[in-house]
């Protein structure tokens, strides 16, 4: 014996002459804890001795105890350490008044006799974590109500129907009460009890039932009485998935004469009939298990059926019909011989998970087994299958899909069934509903109803803890309250990215106001045609990006309030928005980094007049894009960090009629002064035209190092020299759209007599794309090359439409142009 090892196992069969020696072992044994203590006494010892031995074990915090002794120590029932207890002796189990076995998980009672109802109940209910309870061949004659109430109990096996034993109670004069919400496995081998009261057996997976009718019982009462009792039993276990019935049980059921309840959950059924009555009952039984997938007819029944088949034709017919139509897999059915040619059809045994192995291996949950089998087969069959990816990844894949398609995956297989509902992104687009539909096949009204109910249902079933992205795009007009309810769901789901795009003809429509106080919202895109009514209380503490497209602003104050209530706003984009109610467009934000205003659009909201002033106060702004008609004024403050500006300002004819060029020239000056810190400047041809026409003197923009220019149809490059003059530190000059407007137009270049300073002193790089080889182009290039004294890179890309010959000609022409810089690298492609 390794007395020092922590896990100890002492197992002795003690003979009387070794009593002393045995005691010596216990005393000498010095491991601090006993793991397993087994004591089996075939002979009678003094109970005080036996108790002392047990006490020794208890003192050493024994965890597993197996006693086959004539009496037990009372302290046994108050042992904290005990996890496993097996009592297997012929004695009356007197439970002391105080019982608590806080760690006991397994209790195995074999051949003991219960003393009375109350103490038995107390024993079981004093084991709070009891998971397995077995009673075998126990004496029940003192019991009238066998009450098992255990909240953690998973496995219960009661076998008392023993005839030849001194405790056998052929009468079974007790009621069985079970309250075990976690019970998964139940085995009952007994005579029919006086009643069954099963509560809470919701978790039940597998049940093995054998109830016998003893002759003496039937003499006492009639068979129907006991049939009723069995019915009670079956009703109590109606949640079961795997059911094993013996022939005796089936007989008892048949005798009940009443209809069986429908057992919807039973997927596996094993019957082992040993009597003709049980066999005859089989068709009725099968009727009450509509969802059965596997049937195991025991060998005995098989033989029995095949021999007697002609005697019970109705059974055979019912079975045949049933097996052919409803059952997918039948085990052991091969043993049946129903006659001509049918056997082979019936013998289709697709199901591989053997139910018989389950029934023998009683602690194994059949369902687990089946699931394992399924996984195994799936893995084998679908080695490349998508199903082997973990759910998390599948969810991620679904998150890229519009919700419609994500939901559609739910009927791929059971794995996918509920997957979509945990996808954090929701993307609704009513156009997808129209997709593939023949026009006119369904009225738009139907579509709206169908889309509305789709969104409603998805939102109801969706159960991801948070909504990350919510995208709603509608082409149709929906009820304002309905749309707002959808948005509300998203906001409640702590949405981070919200993308809304829907038309709303109802002019009084206001967006769900909770949207404007969402703490979670990081990204908001509104791309809808309605008036943006901003509620009184606005605070979007997390909003970093705000895109407004095609909405109409309601007034100056509320618009500014919206922008200034986003303390961490980094990106603001206003595109095609209706500005007709705006007089002063004010944008401020302490960390606003990117700003886009693109309103020069001539659709229903376009305000050709642009009758507003633009006020910008953004100390952190780095990128500024302005595409608009000329405003009534520009007040740009604090643009110290500005790196890049893209400007396109148009002059509309009605405006020019109203006020002169000079007036708008002044406005341009304001704009240019505002962006005077910029490093990279992009100007469109239209804007250059405006600058030229308004005849203003540009302020010197000292910081501009990169200039990108495009050309419009009319004005050409007339303004270029003036522009270059005001950029004394220019390093690079780009013409990404070429030197000629796409659609031709006048090419104007009046070569000045003078040379801008930047050409002489600092311009290092010129890039021209879409070069076409026109005369005017050469003139401009010649001027630039001649005068750019420190140029190091000159790069030209020819237009895509040119032939190789034309390209060759161009490259030759360009090579021969005189260059002011000796070290210039010429790249043509």
């Amino acid at each position, binding site marked *: 014996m390794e007395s020092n090892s922590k896990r100890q196992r002492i197992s002795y069969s003690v003979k009387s002459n070794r009593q002393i020696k045995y005691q010596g072992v216990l005393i000498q044994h010095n491991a601090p804890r006993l793991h397993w203590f087994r004591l089996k006494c075939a002979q009678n010892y003094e109970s005080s001795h036996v108790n002392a031995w047990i006490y020794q074990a208890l003192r050493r915090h024994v965890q597993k105890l197996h006693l086959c002794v004539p009496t037990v120590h009372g302290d046994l029932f108050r042992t904290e350490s005990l996890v496993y207890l097996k009592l297997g002796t012929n004695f009356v189990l007197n439970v002391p008044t105080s019982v608590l076995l806080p760690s006991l998980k397994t209790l195995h009672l074999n051949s003991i006799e219960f003393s009375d109802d109350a103490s038995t109940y107390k024993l079981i209910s004093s084991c709070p974590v009891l998971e397995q309870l077995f009673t075998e061949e126990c004496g029940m004659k003192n019991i009238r109500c066998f009450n098992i109430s255990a909240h953690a109990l998973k496995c219960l096996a009661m076998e008392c129907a023993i005839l030849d034993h001194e405790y056998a109670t052929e009468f079974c004069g007790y009621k069985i009460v079970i309250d075990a919400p976690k019970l998964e496995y139940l085995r009952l081998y007994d005579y029919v009890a006086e009643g069954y009261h099963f509560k809470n057996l919701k978790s039940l997976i597998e049940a093995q039932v054998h109830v016998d009718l003893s002759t003496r019982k039937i003499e006492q009462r009639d068979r129907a009485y006991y049939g009723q009792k069995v019915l009670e039993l079956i009703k109590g276990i109606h949640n079961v998935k795997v059911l094993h019935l013996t022939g005796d049980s089936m007989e008892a059921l048949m005798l009940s004469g009443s209809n069986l309840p429908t057992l919807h959950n039973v997927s596996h059924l094993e019957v082992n009939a040993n009597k003709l009555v049980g066999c005859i009952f089989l068709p009725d039984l099968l009727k009450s298990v509509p969802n059965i997938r596997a049937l195991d007819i025991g060998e005995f029944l098989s033989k029995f059926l095949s021999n007697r088949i002609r005697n019970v034709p109705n059974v055979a017919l019912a079975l045949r019909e049933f097996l052919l139509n409803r059952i997918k897999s039948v085990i052991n059915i091969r043993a049946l011989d129903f006659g001509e040619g049918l056997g082979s059809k019936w013998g289709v045994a697709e199901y591989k998970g053997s139910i018989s192995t389950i029934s023998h291996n009683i602690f194994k949950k059949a369902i687990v087994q089946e699931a394992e089998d399924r996984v195994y087969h799936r893995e084998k069959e679908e080695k490349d299958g998508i199903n082997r*990816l*973990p759910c998390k990844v599948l969810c991620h*894949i679904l998150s890229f899909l519009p919700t419609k*398609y994500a939901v*559609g995956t739910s*009927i*791929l297989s059971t794995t*996918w069934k509920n997957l979509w509902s945990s996808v954090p992104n929701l993307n609704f687009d009513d156009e*997808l509903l129209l997709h593939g539909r023949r026009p006119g096949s369904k009225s738009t009204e139907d579509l709206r109803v*169908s889309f509305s109910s789709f969104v409603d249902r998805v939102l109801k079933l969706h159960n991801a803890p948070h909504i990350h992205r919510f995208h709603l795009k509608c082409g149709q007009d929906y009820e304002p309250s309905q749309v707002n309810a959808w948005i509300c769901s998203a906001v409640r789901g702590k949405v981070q990215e919200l993308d809304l795009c829907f038309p709303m003809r109802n002019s009084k429509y206001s967006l769900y106001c909770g949207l404007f106080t969402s703490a979670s919202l990081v990204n908001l895109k509104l791309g809808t045609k309605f008036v943006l009514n901003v509620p009184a209380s606005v605070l979007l503490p997390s909003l970093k990006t705000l895109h407004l497209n095609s909405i109409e602003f309601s007034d100056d104050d509320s618009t500014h309030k919206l922008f200034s209530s986003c303390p961490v706003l980094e990106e603001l984009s206003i595109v095609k928005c209706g500005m007709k109610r705006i007089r002063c467009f004010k944008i401020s934000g302490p960390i606003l980094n990117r700003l886009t205003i693109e309103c020069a659009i001539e659709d229903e909201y376009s305000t050709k007049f642009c009758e507003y002033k633009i006020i910008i106060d953004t100390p952190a702004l780095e990128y500024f894009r302005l595409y608009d008609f000329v405003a009534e004024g520009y007040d740009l403050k604090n643009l110290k960090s500005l790196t890049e500006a893209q400007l396109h300002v148009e002059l509309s004819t009605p405006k020019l009629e109203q006020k002169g060029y000079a007036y708008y020239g002044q406005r341009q000056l304001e704009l240019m002064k505002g962006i005077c810190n910029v490093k990279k400047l992009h100007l469109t041809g239209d804007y250059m035209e405006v600058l030229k026409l308004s005849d203003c003197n540009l302020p010197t923009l000292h910081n501009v190092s990169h200039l990108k220019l495009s050309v419009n149809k009319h004005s050409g490059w007339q303004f270029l020299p003036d522009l270059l003059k005001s950029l004394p530190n220019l390093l690079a000059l780009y013409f990404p759209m070429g030197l000629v407007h796409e659609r031709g137009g006048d090419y104007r270049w009046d070569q000045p007599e003078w040379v801008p300073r930047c050409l002489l002193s600092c311009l290092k790089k010129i890039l021209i794309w879409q070069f076409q080889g026109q005369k005017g182009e050469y003139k401009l290039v010649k001027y630039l090359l001649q005068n750019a004294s420190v140029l190091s890179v000159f790069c030209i890309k020819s237009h895509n439409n040119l032939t190789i010959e034309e390209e060759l000609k161009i490259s030759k022409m360009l090579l021969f142009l005189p260059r002011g810089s000796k070290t210039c690298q010429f790249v043509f492609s």
Partner: protein
Amino acid sequence: MSNTSENPNPSSSSAKITLKTSDNELFEVEEAVAMKFCTVKQYFEDEKDNDVAARGSSTVIPLPNVHSAVLARLISYCKKLPQSNAVADNHEEEETKKKERKQYGTPGDLVDLISAANYLDFKEGLEFFNQALADHIQNKSVEYVRKFFGIKGDFEPHEEEKYREEYAWAFEGVDED
């Protein structure tokens, strides 16, 4: 792919790390590439903590769940990754990306790549390949997707009928192939 700004020691930016795949192939990859795989990164950092002397090429990192063919593709994808994660704003860019995603071929290949990317905790790859897979599912009938990905419909016929009815709105107007 230079990460000199992160790494004060320029020599180690070109250091190689050896990865060993499930079929015992050895891959010598640049540290910058290997560090995209968070699983490798974690392993590498743990190794570094444990043994300061064992550095760089001397460490062989085992990847028992990744086959060499898959790893090779992941590495080549990794090398193609753009420097900046600029958001594809315009439509054209989105189209090119879609085309690029289509190159990764059969669903089996994609599943292999995703499975490996998931194991390696390779975020950009997972994002890209998952999107590619999603492209395949988009607007396709149940039968098509099942066939495409070898999914076995394990619903009972009546159960499936029930779900189809229940989710009818999700199947309106999908392509049959």
